[in-house]
């Protein structure tokens, strides 16, 4: 990595931190405009306990003062304490859940890129044949079927049949913690976006395949595999990489739903649970983490460019 790249990455990291702070501040202020307080719920507390609890969470202070305290905590990496499970520190909790979400997200990105590129490349090589039409139709259909529908279909198609075929020895219960539980949610999450990647790869491959240097490669008598994979695909990938940023944001959105459906203990499930429980401290914390994650993912994508195309430098 050159010095320029490092400086660029450092600048971006600063920008990402600023965005994360701004975004979570907006959410903090928005939530503190809600009437009542976070502890007001069905269960009645006696006034002294309630006062003590409010004091414990600094909720008895006016919100600008709470905000200053919260920002101070944030700058020290401390996102506070859960409102529902008293004593649970949010930062370590979310860090643990982030590793789960990132694992699932990376698996989904692999599905997206691999399936999408393969389909797109095959469609481009066999342009205007039935293979091409089938792949293009599959792409629109794949994109129109939302991730949770893929999830239902995949569960129906894999879980019970596997159980029956193996005579009950292989039962993949949905959940998290075992490696064999990763593929189904990752496929559900990745397939709708694979369709977009396939479309883009096809369009960009069609352009590259007609270039002079590809004809030269054929003329030299190189093997088809080398021409397609090393000469054509590598250049065709550059426009495809540019869509990876928005795509990762989409996968993160989808992961909120998929994690909830599959009971995967990641950030998305935590977000939904905390919203339903009105655990505002965790809601704000998850926002901070997501803003940082999206920023980092986009940075990672931008750092792939110079690897693929040495002409691009920062």
């Amino acid at each position: 990595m050159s010095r320029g790249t490092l400086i660029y990455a450092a600048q971006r990291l600063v920008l990402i931190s600023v965005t994360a702070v701004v975004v979570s501040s907006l959410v903090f202020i928005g939530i503190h405009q809600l009437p009542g307080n976070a502890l007001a719920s069905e269960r009645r507390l006696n006034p002294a306990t309630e006062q003590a609890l409010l004091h414990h969470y600094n909720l008895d202070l006016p919100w600008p003062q709470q905000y200053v305290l919260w920002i101070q905590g944030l700058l020290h990496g401390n996102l506070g304490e859960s409102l529902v499970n008293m004593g649970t520190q949010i930062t370590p909790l979310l860090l643990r859940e982030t590793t789960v979400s990132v694992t699932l997200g990376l698996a989904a990105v692999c599905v997206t890129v691999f399936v999408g590129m393969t389909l797109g490349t095959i469609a481009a090589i066999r342009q205007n044949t039935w293979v091409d039409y089938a792949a293009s139709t599959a792409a629109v259909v794949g994109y129109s079927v939302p991730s949770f529908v893929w999830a239902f279909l995949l569960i129906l198609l894999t879980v019970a049949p596997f159980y029956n075929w193996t005579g009950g020895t292989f039962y993949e219960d949905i959940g998290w913690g075992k490696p064999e539980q990763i593929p189904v949610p990752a496929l559900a999450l990745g397939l709708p976006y694979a369709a977009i990647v396939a479309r883009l790869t096809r369009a960009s491959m069609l352009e590259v395949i007609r270039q002079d240097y590809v004809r030269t490669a054929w003329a030299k008598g190189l093997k088809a595999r080398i021409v397609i994979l090393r000469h054509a695909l590598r250049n065709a990938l550059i426009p495809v990489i540019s869509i990876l940023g928005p795509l990762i944001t989409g996968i993160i959105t989808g992961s909120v739903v998929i994690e909830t459906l599959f009971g995967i203990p990641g950030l998305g499930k935590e977000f939904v649970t905390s919203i339903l429980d009105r655990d505002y401290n965790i809601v704000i914390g998850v926002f901070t983490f997501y803003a940082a994650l999206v920023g980092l993912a986009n940075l990672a994508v931008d750092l792939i460019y110079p690897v693929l195309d040495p002409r691009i430098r920062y």
Partner: protein
Amino acid sequence: MAALPQSLESSQEQLLEQDIADHVTLGQDAWRRLRRNRLAVIGLVIISVFIVSALISFVWTPYPTWRQALGPTYQGPTLAHPLGLDDYGRDILSRVMGGAAIALSVGVGASAIASFIGILLGLLAGFYRGKVDLVISTLINVSYGIPDLLIALVLVLLIGRGVGNIILAIAVTAWLGMARLVRGQTLSIREKEFVEAARTIGTPNAMILLRHILPNALGPIVVQATYLVPAAIIFEAFLSLLGMGIPPPAPSWGRMASEGYKALELAPHIVLMPCAALSLTVLAFNWVGDGLRDAIDPRMKR
């Protein structure tokens, strides 16, 4: 030799006739191309079917969408209940019809509001540039950094879960793409000669924006607005699946799927019927969107 000029002349006449016949407005021209696109036509038919069943559901459904215990719970498709019964013994066909009304109103409503916000902000940013553009573009770029589902969930938490509120929450997260598109279009159109001419004769800015710039950007706007409808429908299903959608007993497709999920292996039809309706609607809108894109600007054709 004598035949040649004659045939030339006749072919010229033919050309002239064709020219006159071809004298159609931009919209008619696009419509003609759209009609020739098989997938787009199929999409339009599917959408019409759903619109009609949604309209019918307002006055009549085979059974009331909320009536429980119509037969054995989890019963698969039968003659009396073509799509089967759900876990409370409600008729799924009736609920899918009611769900179509919800999905379409959320989709079209959110798309309309998001388009309005996006067009307005995009026009302002692209036309006035400078500080206005800076503020709007910053807003767009910061919002792109947050997954929209999270914003929508917090908004629903803040403003409540009625149909109108859900539409609003979706629209507030969906206008970004439209604003970006319109801003780009405006930036390029505002430099065209006819805009300069309009400005020279003292046309007020509002008039330039509405009469000269907006109509010229309408093609891509219509395409984008079409794509926004299925996106909003999926979004509503997401919210319902997470328990933050339109409250029961309204038969939203996402809610039906999430309620049936616990019995997925036992009675897959409860989940599959609303999911099929949802996917089919989204697919139809995407086909129409693709068709419109190719019809309005054939150069964009992939």
